[in-house]
């Protein structure tokens, strides 16, 4: 379908789909390899290869067990989660920008991430139950709540695609304040330190069970969004136009909004609220592969994964002996791009 759309639409993307998938996969492998090799303790490509052969293919090649542990339990799981999280956020950006017809839509700016944080923190601080699943459930409830809040505020105040961003700002502020309130009033000192670090976006505590949650979620979401790619294309001229092209607008909206809330909640519950990935990656990919959503979703998922994995590597290398929150790195790259987009959208009017 995607290849068909490519040739049929007659536009000339910079890369064909085959070429893009090839380059994208290669970039993904390279980013993950960097993620494994670089860090406080450097490991050699040889050790990485041996570890992977042992773990994945059942070989018994000689590797130092401590280094094998670092490679397998820390670095690889961390890189895998980074890839899944980046892909999830980028997919969310593509979907939200199409549905809301607003180039600035993404989970962070719309307050969905803030809501997810509030939900996750509430579960952690109030000890409503331990384990990744309950924290994720809390994050999902928070994300859904924030989404409802922003949607009601935006459409209650007269609708329009500009309102949604204003409502998103209100939502972010409200839910961030709620998070701070919960942390300040109820968390122990130790809890507070952990939560504050995690709120800025951190891949520090990530292990394999997290990847076990993030990977199936992003894979299912990707498949569903690709299935809905044509419906997203049809939203180009607004909801009436989409409806007259055969899209069941209400149903598609509800399903896709729920999906973005779920993706965001999953990401936030694992690595915290990381901004700008959902904003920057879709715009960059539109330049590369064009606006057709079949291609755009695939490309954004790949690029988001690569971007996040590399951001994580950078977060470990920038300050020797220290790890920056990964959200700091994505914001350092994302904020200038955000400014450029704002500038361009102003010029277009």
């Amino acid at each position, binding site marked *: 379908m995607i290849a068909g759309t490519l040739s049929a639409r007659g536009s000339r993307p910079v890369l064909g789909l085959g070429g893009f998938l090839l380059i994208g996969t290669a970039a993904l492998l390279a980013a993950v390899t960097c993620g494994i090799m670089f860090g406080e303790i450097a490991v050699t490509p040889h050790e990485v290869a041996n570890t992977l052969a042992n773990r994945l293919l059942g070989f018994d090649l000689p590797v130092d067990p401590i280094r094998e542990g670092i490679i397998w339990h820390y670095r690889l799981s961390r890189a895998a989660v980074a890839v899944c999280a980046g892909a999830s956020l980028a997919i969310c950006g593509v979907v939200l920008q199409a549905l809301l017809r607003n180039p600035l839509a993404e989970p962070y700016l719309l307050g969905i991430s803030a809501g997810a944080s509030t939900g996750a923190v509430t579960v952690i601080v109030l000890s409503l139950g331990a384990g990744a699943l309950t924290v994720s459930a809390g994050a999902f409830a928070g994300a859904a709540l924030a989404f409802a809040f922003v949607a009601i505020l935006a459409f209650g105040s007269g609708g329009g695609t500009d309102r949604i961003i204003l409502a998103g700002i209100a939502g972010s502020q409200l839910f961030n304040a709620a998070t701070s309130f919960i942390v300040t009033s109820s968390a122990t000192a130790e809890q507070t330190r952990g939560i504050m670090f995690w709120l800025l976006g951190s891949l520090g505590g990530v292990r394999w069970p997290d990847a076990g949650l993030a990977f199936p979620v992003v894979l299912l979401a990707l498949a569903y969004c690709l299935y809905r790619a044509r419906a997203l*294309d*049809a939203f180009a001229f607004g909801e009436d136009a989409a*409806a007259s092209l055969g899209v069941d607008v209400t149903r598609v909206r509800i399903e896709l909004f729920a999906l973005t809330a779920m993706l965001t909640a999953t990401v936030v519950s694992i690595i915290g609220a990381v901004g700008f990935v959902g904003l920057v990656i879709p715009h960059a990919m539109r330049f590369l592969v064009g606006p057709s959503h079949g291609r755009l979703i695939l490309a954004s998922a790949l690029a988001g994964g690569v971007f996040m994995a590399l951001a994580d590597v950078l977060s470990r290398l920038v300050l020797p002996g220290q790890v920056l929150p990964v959200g700091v790195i994505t914001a350092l790259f994302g904020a200038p791009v955000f400014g450029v987009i704002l500038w361009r959208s102003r010029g277009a009017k």
Partner: protein
Amino acid sequence: MTLSAENVSWTAGGAPIVRDVTLALPEKGVLGLVGPNGSGKSSLLRLLAGLRRGTGGAVYVDGQPITRIRRAEIARRLAVVEQQATTEVALSAREVVALGRAPQRAAWSAWTERDEAAVASALERTGMMHRAAQQWSTLSGGERQRIQIARALAQEPRELLLDEPTNHLDIRHQLDLMRLLPRLGTRVVVALHDLNQAAAFCSEIAVMHEGRLIAQGAPAQVLNASLIGEVFAVDASVTCGPTGTRISFF
């Protein structure tokens, strides 16, 4: 009885906009929907397309209430061109026309020869082939309108609803379009405000006034001086000659 409205009403913001309209599309030909600004032409077209849910009455497609039919099924037979279309997406003219193929294609199916032919034919008939590769955002108002019409034609509809499609067109393209409509082989409903155009090119005319449909019939029957005076609040004289119905205003 293909597309019809029975006692359809629509209220928005507390005000009745469309009141108790009963209308059946003629078996073939072009139905011109005329009426002054704000008389409810666009609203009625949206109701007929199933894009709004009436507050009373019902719209029927082949005898079935339109609200009971899946959107995808409606889109395979009924196409709409709205009064204006805007997008932020960087699409080429051809990509916009290709959107019209969406209802005909299954979720994972490839782009077929048939899709390609439908798009090419739509671009050809609207005279927009030479602009196919151009970005939508750089097209003129009239060219955008023609591309939207091409998109609707690419849907290969049986019913085509057009909302003031001649608005941005220069006189030559207005005439080209109005001459094209009867030759499409689809049932067409076209909202117009130019009474002479309606008289010249429509096989039937329906007149909207303050949300009501006050007359429907052949142009020569419907368009008389007293009705025009009542609806449009102008003095007019109507002459029916061998070249058709002409309306002059004073």
